[in-house]
């Protein structure tokens, strides 16, 4: 029960952010230590072994698999082009021979006389890794990738969909409590990171996809809207690979919920800046949250002090967000930390804390149901 509370989401004006950019398999790193890289610059690349295409010759040419070896016209390792004969049958007394012409190009990987199968490996697939973070290469991991560091404004969302994307920040909502509707999205937001306030509606996302926005950031979303966007009911919060056309980052949670004022103000302050957004969320051991990374210009770096992040301890006076009903979404400060477990309304016993809400009211909340506001 060491830390029975959710470590909070980072929302900071300035932080030195490090990011690890690694190839899935060993390859070539294109930059060297100390280089300055742009977000969309390729930093490492490699070739994945091509797709393998099994061709069942025994079936295709109606012969026993044991004959396949003799009938294949190519050897293992040889190249074959589309339309080139791959195999020929023995025929009946040398007549009525059938030829199979390859439908794929590639190299012959294996020929099997048990399965009658020939495996053709296609062209290698190039794999590239982009910098994602505009900054400096601090470390090169040979054959694998790089570490990039930069001073950035950094906003973590609670949940997102879609992968990495880039664009300039544009505000669609005027206040952190304004809902993001379709009519607030205009064609000039093409390629931008659109920032809304409270709940984002399904048709607003549709519109954003239509205008070709890079990302949408909002405070909340309704479960049914998400279902409409994805086309299915999301069961487990592991995302990042969806192909909906836009990256979506939700900063607070599900329902009618306004974006935290701090987050909204931070984003508002950076309007027009270039941001990298990643919607990938993974809520499991080794948690991954969606993020908005806004690199700071050199002047800004000088101007602002990097935020000091402590380990995040629950202390009296710390701002916290309540993350479960009945006070879901409310923000307050820790007013007291009783050490003895208390009986909750549900009848269970748990360790609690007292939270002083913005309205001045003090409520008792289980420690598991609050989240630190960090930064």
């Amino acid at each position: 029960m060491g830390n029975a509370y959710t470590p909070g989401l980072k929302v900071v004006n300035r932080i030195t952010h490090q990011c690890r950019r690694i190839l899935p398999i060993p390859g070539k790193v294109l930059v060297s230590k100390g280089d300055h890289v742009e977000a969309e610059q390729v930093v490492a690349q490699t070739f994945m072994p091509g797709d393998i295409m099994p061709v069942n010759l025994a079936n295709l040419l109606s012969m026993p698999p044991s004959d396949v070896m003799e009938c294949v016209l190519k050897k293992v390792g040889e190249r074959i082009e589309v339309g080139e004969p791959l195999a020929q049958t023995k025929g009946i007394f040398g007549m009525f021979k059938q030829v199979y012409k390859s439908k794929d190009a590639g190299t012959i990987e294996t020929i099997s006389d048990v399965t009658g199968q020939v495996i053709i490996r296609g062209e290698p697939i190039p794999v590239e890794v982009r910098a994602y973070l505009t900054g400096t290469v601090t470390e090169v991991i040979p054959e694998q990738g790089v570490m990039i560091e930069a001073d950035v404004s950094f906003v973590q969302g609670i949940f997102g969909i879609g992968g990495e994307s880039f664009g300039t920040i544009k505000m669609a909502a005027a206040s952190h409590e304004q809902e993001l509707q379709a009519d607030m999205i205009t064609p000039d937001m093409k390629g931008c990171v659109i920032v809304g306030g409270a709940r984002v509606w399904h048709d607003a996302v549709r519109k954003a996809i239509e205008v070709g926005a890079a990302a949408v950031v909002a405070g909340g979303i309704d479960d049914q809207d998400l279902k409409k966007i994805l086309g299915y009911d999301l069961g487990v919060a592991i995302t990042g690979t969806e192909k909906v056309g836009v990256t979506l980052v939700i900063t607070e949670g599900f329902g009618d919920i306004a974006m935290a004022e701090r987050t909204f103000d931070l984003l508002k302050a950076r309007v027009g800046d270039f941001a990298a957004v990643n919607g990938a969320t993974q809520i499991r051991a080794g948690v991954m949250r969606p993020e908005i990374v806004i690199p700071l210009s050199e002047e800004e770096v000088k101007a602002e002090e990097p935020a000091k992040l402590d380990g995040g301890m629950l202390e009296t006076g710390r701002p916290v967000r309540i993350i479960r009903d009945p006070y879901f979404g409310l923000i307050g400060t820790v007013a007291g930390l009783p050490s003895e477990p208390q009986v909750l309304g549900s009848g269970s016993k748990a360790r609690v804390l007292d939270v002083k809400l913005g309205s001045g009211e003090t409520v008792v909340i289980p420690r598991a149901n609050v989240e630190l506001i960090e930064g």
Partner: protein
Amino acid sequence: MTTTTKSDAQQARVILATDCGSTTTKAILIQLTDEGYRQTHRGEAPTTVEEPFADVTMGVVNAVVEVGELAGRKFIDDSGKIIQPATETEGCDVYISTSSAGGGLQMMVAGVVAEMTAASAKRAALGAGAIVMDVIASNDKRKPHEQIQRIRELRPDMMLVSGGTDGGDAKHVVSIAELIAPAKPQPRFGSGYTLPIIYAGNKDAAPRMNKIFEQGFELLIVDNLRPVLERENLGPARDAIHDLFLEHVMAHAPGYDKLMGWTDAPIMPTPGAVGNILQTIAESQNINAVGVDIGGATTDVFSVFDKTFNRTVSANLGMSYSISNVCAEATMPNILRWVHFDMDERELRNRVKNKMIRPTTIPQSLEALVFEQAVAREALRLAYIQHKEFATTLKGVQQQRSVGDTFSQETGGQTIVDNMKLNLLVASGGVLSHAPSMNQTALLLIDAFQPEGFTTLAKDSIFMMPHLGVLAQVHPKAAMEVFERDCLIYLGTCVAPKGSGKPGKPCFDYTIKGSTLNESGQIAFGEIKLLPLAEGETASVTVEPGRTFDCGNGPGKRVEKTVKGGTVGLVLDGRGRPLELPESREACKPLISKWVEAMKLYPGMG
């Protein structure tokens, strides 16, 4: 190593056991007292498998130190090692451990036909305590390139390839191997790790396997797990999984090599150990048992029926990470039928999603608890359905017919799970173990599993089953004694006849004779009654079911049995089996309210 300590183990007085979970490492201490072996102390500490510690033994030492402090014993010497053997004040005689850290043992299995050898392979892997990420079979309706894609995407720790009877099919199993080899799945542990592959298929194809997996794989060939379709031989494959788990998977996890040196029995995957203890219990007491462990992401169901052990992992049925998936699969109306008051569905949906993205929160209000328990009922029900579908007799067996079966042509692959034959139902996992009231746990189990006849309900007090599972291998007697006395908390017994009737009409008559409880009466259909019968007490219950109801001896036949009491007591359930709830929400609510009241579930709720 095991054999030498095994003989000493029988004299062991102090036994220390740890379970390295993915977040916490739990240690328990078992000591030989005047009343036999008892679990005396427990302690826990965060698991230290990941950065920045990257040494599992640190967490183990922390947990053990906590136990030591509580017990007033010193277990760790100055060099940071566990002291063995025990003296009066120091050390322990036996140290054992299980592990599911780092996501447990993740496997991929392959077989020829999904319902036959692939199912057997899955059974072997699950039984050994692995998480089966995917099953590749020639009839899994995926095209070869899709299968390759899948093999490439997943990063298993180990693969089990089977298929074909001995002397049977070689073509398919070889073609699957031919897909795996060039696909070269990348193991989680990085490039230095050679993927272990266990081949337990047609022995004729073994030489080919050697050739195909010559390079870049660690191939282990064991006896076919389905030598003929009529018989399964899972032992060798399971043992091979355990061996490779230690040799490869564990060896690559930080600190495990050290831990392995300390233990007196091989480290087992946690679920494998749970299965082990359940099997031991069922065998020694000659009963049929079902165990369930509902977690945040997954739900494990274990069953032993007629000495056959089965385990299933319902990957996406859990109470936090997967709660949204439970709602999607079970559908909201199905969940809400267990809730006896009005709730706003849209708000609930958003709440569910919020729990999914903030999985560690706990219900604060009673309403939230009722809803969460409703979700748990559905999660358990679905997991049990999956389990029933998986735990079947073997498929593909030739049936010998005589003229008598002309009109009852039973097919193979029938489920072996029979709720009427079930004797013991053991619950564990957050939502069940930590329910504010045991009555809630009991009714949750009854509603979700719908046991028939006489079934004893119990819960695992502090999730001690994994520890005892390993202990059963070195010291079965100690494991059994602790299991009986400390591990299980008996909730009571459920008596529920099978059948259906009209609401309000008599379901069964009962007569109870016990030292404190002497009652008789009638239960109407649709009624549930809770009678107190304290833990440790027993009573003799005679049930005379109505004509359409069966309590174990056939419809309308009288049954007499001795039942165990528990913290909840004796539940007389006349709601019929299968348990059917009215379709309309309006009709459902008063009914559930009645049951909630009868079971004294939520006393705070008016």
